């Protein structure tokens, strides 16, 4: 009896206390987080992984969340973002590059709402940016590919020739050449992030040209599935795709937004959120490598060692000397490419036998 009375009294006192300290400091359950996705949550790639991050927020903080999927990167994005801001969301993640300008616009109109834009470069007091250093994972994948290829031809399905993708190709090839200087890469641009039909066709064309390792920078499991069916090896993209290709997947470069999203939601809850620019790599947990499978133990050990060296900061994939295709020295011997160079990378490194679409 007394115990329950005490409990109620404590609760009441606590409630008064909370009121007294002011309504400004929102409680965790007051945080309402909105997500805008460019693809369907069932893409098993990019949007799927962001939605896993959203679920992590729900599981760890109990905050209310909502999302809108397949929002076109045009005039519609601004309305969706604005509707979220208007319906009481106080933290909004816009998870595609094409949402940058609409996010910036709505952020100006809602100074009390916090915005987070993935992969962009425009920031404000209430607008953060975040992205992951996937090129670190691609270097590890390159090392594995260099060891595993027999034909010395790697097939690479690209989405768009933006810096993110070009950087990935360069990093991958530096990894491959570190163990096998004879590797050649053939690249097909699918001109889409998500179109299983087109992605699969690109993979078929590459395998027909002799590729025995399939790499992709598009979001559906289609290229990896083609690899599985044609009996060659490949890498998963964005999420662990082992169930789509149990015999073909070597590893996958997994986007892991869980920690970041939970931390940002908590920061809003306890009032410590500030506008930041985050670019996390393997060490931050944003880039995960799926289990190393379908490879001999020595290759697995090498991959694990490479991953560990990158995570500890002992090794950086873009360590000079790095020459571009024209033979110009871009990064001097012993120096590291700075983030500015990495973010704007629109050139292939020397040795890549392809022309960058202009």
């Amino acid at each position, binding site marked *: 009896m007394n115990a329950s009375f005490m409990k109620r009294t404590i609760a009441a006192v606590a409630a008064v206390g909370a009121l007294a300290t002011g309504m400004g400091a929102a409680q965790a359950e007051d945080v309402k987080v909105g997500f805008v996705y460019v693809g369907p949550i069932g893409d098993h790639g990019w949007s799927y992984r962001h939605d896993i991050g959203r679920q992590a927020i729900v599981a760890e903080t109990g905050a209310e969340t909502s999302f809108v999927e397949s929002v076109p990167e045009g*005039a519609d994005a601004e309305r969706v973002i604005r509707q979220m801001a208007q319906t009481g969301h106080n933290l909004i993640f816009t998870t595609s590059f094409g949402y940058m300008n609409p996010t910036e616009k709505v952020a100006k109109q809602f100074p009390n709402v916090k915005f987070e834009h993935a992969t962009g470069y425009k920031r404000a007091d209430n607008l953060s940016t975040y992205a992951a250093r996937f090129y670190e994972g691609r270097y590890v994948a390159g090392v594995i590919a260099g060891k595993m290829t027999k034909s010395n031809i790697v097939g690479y399905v690209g989405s768009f020739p933006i810096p993110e993708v070009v950087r990935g190709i360069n990093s991958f090839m530096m990894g491959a050449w570190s163990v096998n200087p004879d590797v050649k890469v053939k690249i097909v641009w699918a001109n889409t992030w998500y179109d299983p039909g087109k992605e699969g066709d690109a993979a078929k064309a590459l395998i027909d040209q002799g590729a025995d390792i399939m790499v992709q920078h598009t979001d559906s499991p289609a290229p990896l599935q083609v690899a599985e069916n044609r009996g060659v090896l490949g890498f998963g993209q964005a999420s662990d795709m082992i169930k789509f290709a149990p015999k073909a997947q070597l590893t996958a470069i997994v986007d892991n937004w869980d920690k970041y999203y939970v931390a940002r939601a908590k920061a809003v809850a306890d009032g410590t959120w500030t506008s930041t620019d985050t670019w996390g790599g393997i060490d931050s947990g944003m880039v995960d490598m799926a289990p190393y499978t379908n490879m001999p133990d020595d290759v697995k050990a090498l991959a694990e060692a490479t991953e560990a060296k990158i995570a500890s900061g002992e090794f950086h994939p873009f360590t000079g000397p790095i020459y571009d295709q024209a033979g110009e020295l871009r990064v001097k011997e012993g120096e590291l490419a700075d983030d500015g160079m990495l973010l704007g990378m629109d050139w292939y490194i020397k040795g890549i036998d392809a022309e960058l679409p202009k």
Partner: protein
Amino acid sequence: MVRLEPRRQHSQAMVYLSPVLAIFMTLVVGGIIFAFMGKNPFDALYTFFILPINNSYGISELFVKATPLVIIAVGLSLGFRANVWNIGAEGQLTMGAIFGGGLALYFHDSESAFLLPAMFVLGAIGGAFWAAIPALLRTKFNANEILTSLMLTYVATLFLSFLVHGPWRNPEGFNFPESRPFPDAGLLPIIYDGTRVHLGTAVAVFVVIAGWLLLSKSVIGFQLRVVGKAPQAARHVGFRQKRMVWFTLLLGGALAGLAGLFEVAGPIGQLQPSISPGYGFTAIIVAFLGRLHPVGILFGGLIMALTYLGGELAQITLGLPNAVTGLFQGILLFFLLACDVLTKYRIRFGSTAAKGRTA
């Protein structure tokens, strides 16, 4: 056995009532689906169809979303009436945006009041130029315009992609695929402060009125209707089919091009790889929803726009999947076509008539 038998006379009233009936039945079936998904059907329908437009900002967004749909659909409907099947409005929209937007990028320092009108003209020319190719192929080589106009859509989209990844890429944009922002002189003025309702929305209303006048009061409008309904009669009185093909494709293309320009010079404000979520294709549904009549198209465009807005809110507030939007549009089209069939035909059970004929 169930057969469809043509009605000798069909009710004129039903031609106009069938869209209303289709919408009503869509609501009923939609409500049932919501109930199966464990949502209160009345709440869900409210969220889908009322909540998006229960404030002035929502209504303004409805106009913004309906603007390109209405402009394109009016253009397409003229062709559809004359049996010219332009399926490639999406490509014509893209070319309009490239032509008109290109001018804004070329004069990116301009403050001239002539820039925007010049962009209008070039946008229309861009769309008409892209529609002229299927027109030429149809009139010279009898190539099916459904195929040629559709295929050209992909060419236009890839051309835009090439431009924003390459020569027209923003030099200050960190190599990301987007153009410079248009100068202020190349942006559509906002009609109501605090909203995104732009000059293009006013043009859409004008297009509806002009389309109606053209169809009901002009000689060419009369010819369009005759060519579509009775091609042989049209040939007898000397209406030239080829001229109809050229006229409807060029006009439809120009309007689609203008709609594309309004998107990039309005809500988007620059060129980027994707500028339309398929307005050129959705406008085909809008044209039929509006009975190929400009005023009907105005309402059809608003309803279609509402399904998009409602779909977004249903995701945000009810946690329903995005597929609900497509589902609603599909059900609506299904009932519309079903009502049309039943207006023109009656269902006969059994096979008495067939027996009578063979006996």
